[in-house]
């Protein structure tokens, strides 16, 4: 059978074909031959461009062609190859060759589909490998998108929880007023049965309201992690090898721990996670390697996240710093560094520093970023130092107090601080009726003033006093005025980290009997 093909048809079947004479001088070349090599052109000799298994070119080709043997030509420049057959023709040999790409990848290559024969199976092979790579890229992208979505959801859930917490707080405050005032009315002796029945309805309804508030408290999940008294230096020293592992081999991790024995109240997992976040950020800021320093020190700092109280006194804190020798941040990046979802990394979630800040603020601390371009970055977190002597748990000590009567509180002076006027009035009257000597204050300032004027056995204060904190007042009364007992009230459970372990806490709506038992000396 004889088949006649013109050069264009031949080029479609074998884009890298060559027609050579018996001395292997090129007479014609296909359009795909010179794609990944410089030459050859008609007039050149084949052996100047290719080599093959054999050392006698002219005789080799005669034998290969005669036996229809497989021929592989390897380019003398680079790794490109051509596979095919040498077919004897009148003028010499037709080398019907196919492209063999240097690598089985299209990335960065110069070959295109037309360089391969129409039926060359390499074409679908190469395309499928490229599609597989594209799909792998896509799966990585999807995994990142899902991670970002999950973190966004966690953030939204956290916001919902906080909202539930605030709602429960306000709701409990209102219920407390209703409950206290109905208790006041119930103390009156001249009540008709009908009025007493209505008071019972109000009391019962407030109890049901408390259950709703309790559900909101559960949703707010305020107590998701148990804080412990932690010696920060010990914890960081124990985790050193883990931090080194996270930092990677190119980064030298140093520790300079200068707060031996100093304790903070924090969940260990939360504290470790925060430092891991900082170490991870530091590693990403030093892709070529560098030095990462984890340091601690005791400092007196003003913790005032909202910058609303310029006169806030300094607090003794442990400062935990993570410093890298990376490229540092511009002023703009530094300003936004702690914002949720802000990231300079292509696929960064922007939640790392935001979660660190949230964690330390929940513990009554704060965080700051010190950085400038070319000078590395230090993230420093401050956590209040706590007493580790282990004072007795007050609620237990007062749990078994004497029964209530009209003179139960006789001889006990109480400073009652409550910013809600109706609640203040009702609670004051109830405590008066039990014999306590009650002095009322509606603000932190009034409370301070009263503390300056006289000594009190008990400070009973709301946690939230408008824009001020009853905890600050409690700290002052405890430290400077030596009140015997501090009892905090609130519609939500404050972070235990903020409270001195010697203080007591009672949740609104108030259970008067429980409150009074806490106020009376134990038997």
């Amino acid at each position, binding site marked *: 059978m004889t088949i006649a093909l013109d050069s264009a048809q031949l080029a479609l079947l074998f884009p890298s074909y060559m027609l050579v004479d018996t001395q292997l001088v090129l007479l014609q070349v296909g359009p795909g031959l010179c794609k990944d090599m410089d030459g050859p052109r008609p007039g050149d000799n084949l052996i100047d461009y290719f080599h093959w298994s054999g050392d006698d070119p002219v005789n080799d080709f005669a034998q290969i062609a005669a036996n229809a043997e497989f021929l592989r030509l390897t380019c003398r420049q680079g790794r490109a190859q051509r596979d095919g057959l040498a077919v004897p023709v009148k003028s010499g040999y037709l080398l019907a060759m196919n492209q063999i790409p240097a690598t089985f990848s299209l*990335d960065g290559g110069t*070959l*295109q*589909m*037309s360089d391969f024969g129409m039926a060359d199976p390499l074409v679908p092979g190469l*395309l499928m490998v490229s*599609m597989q790579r594209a799909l792998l*890229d896509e799966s990585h992208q999807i995994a990142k998108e*899902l991670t970002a979505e999950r973190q966004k959801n966690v953030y939204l859930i956290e916001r919902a929880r906080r909202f539930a917490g605030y709602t429960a707080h306000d709701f409990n405050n209102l219920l407390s007023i209703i409950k206290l005032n109905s208790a006041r009315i119930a103390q009156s002796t001249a009540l008709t049965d009908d009025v007493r029945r209505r008071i019972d309805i109000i009391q019962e309804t407030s109890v049901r309201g408390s259950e709703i508030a309790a559900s909101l408290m559960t949703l707010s999940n305020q107590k998701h992690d148990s804080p412990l008294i932690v010696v920060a230096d010990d914890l960081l020293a124990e985790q050193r090898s883990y931090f080194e592992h996270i930092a990677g081999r190119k980064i030298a991790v140093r520790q300079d721990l200068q707060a031996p024995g100093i304790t903070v109240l924090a969940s260990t997992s939360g504290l470790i996670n925060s430092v891991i976040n900082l170490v991870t950020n530091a590693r990403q800021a030093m892709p070529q390697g560098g030095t990462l320093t984890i340091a601690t020190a005791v400092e007196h700092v003003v913790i005032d996240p909202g910058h609303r109280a310029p006169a806030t006194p300094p607090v003794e804190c442990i400062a935990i710093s993570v410093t890298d020798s990376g490229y540092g941040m511009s002023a703009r990046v530094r300003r936004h560094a702690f914002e949720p979802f802000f990231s300079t990394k292509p696929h960064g979630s922007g939640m790392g520093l935001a979660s660190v800040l949230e964690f330390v603020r929940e513990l009554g601390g704060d965080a700051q970023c010190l950085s400038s371009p070319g000078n590395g970055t230090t993230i420093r977190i401050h956590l209040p130092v706590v007493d580790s002597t282990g004072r007795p748990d007050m609620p237990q000590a007062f749990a078994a107090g004497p029964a209530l009567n009209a003179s139960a509180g006789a001889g006990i002076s109480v400073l009652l601080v409550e910013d809600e006027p109706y609640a203040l009035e009702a609670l004051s009257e109830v405590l008066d009726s039990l014999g306590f000597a009650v002095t009322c204050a509606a603000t932190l300032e009034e409370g301070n003033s009263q503390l300056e004027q006289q000594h009190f056995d008990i400070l009973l204060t709301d946690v939230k006093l408008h824009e001020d904190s009853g905890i600050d007042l409690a700290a002052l009364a405890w430290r400077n005025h030596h009140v015997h007992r501090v009892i905090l009230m609130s519609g939500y459970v404050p972070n235990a980290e903020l409270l001195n372990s010697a203080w007591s806490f009672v949740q609104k709506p108030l259970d008067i009997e429980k409150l009074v038992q806490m106020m009376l000396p134990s038997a």
Partner: protein
Amino acid sequence: MYGLIHRAMRAMVTETLGDQAWQTIETGQGIGPGELISLSIYDDALTMQLMAAVSEALQLTMEQTLRRFGAYWIAFVSKGAYSAIVNFTGRDLPTLLRNLNRMHQTVRATMPEALVPSFTVVTEFKGRICVEYRSTRTGLEPMVIGLLEGLIRHFGLTGQVKPGYASSEASQYLITYSDA
């Protein structure tokens, strides 16, 4: 159609109107990541439903949206993970058009249930190419015009695409182009 089309729609909407606009479309159409898997085949009805939602978001007619999407599609596949395939198919306009069917054959080998269109170069002169488009789908002609316009732009050329002879089986497009 296959999910890569949906991903390109998402990219076009988010680039034009922002992430929230696509979120609104996803919520309105009841879709999510499961409808954005590149090599999964989805019902054409879903794709056209999404295209209608995109059209509404962009405040364009369906015809304008399809044409715009056709042009965007070329830009989308040329810059992402599929760019190697586009380059391999052809590094100039005539070569790419001549090889489109070969590329689509591979797509069909990978996804036997995919309905891929056919593009045949009918005539080719310097600066003028007549392409015949065939598909079992109907109504996508504006997108084809957009695709061809996108290719002109992709190769840094200027030119235009005009619809030519059309029958119930095929429609032809005359591309005239020159170096920009």
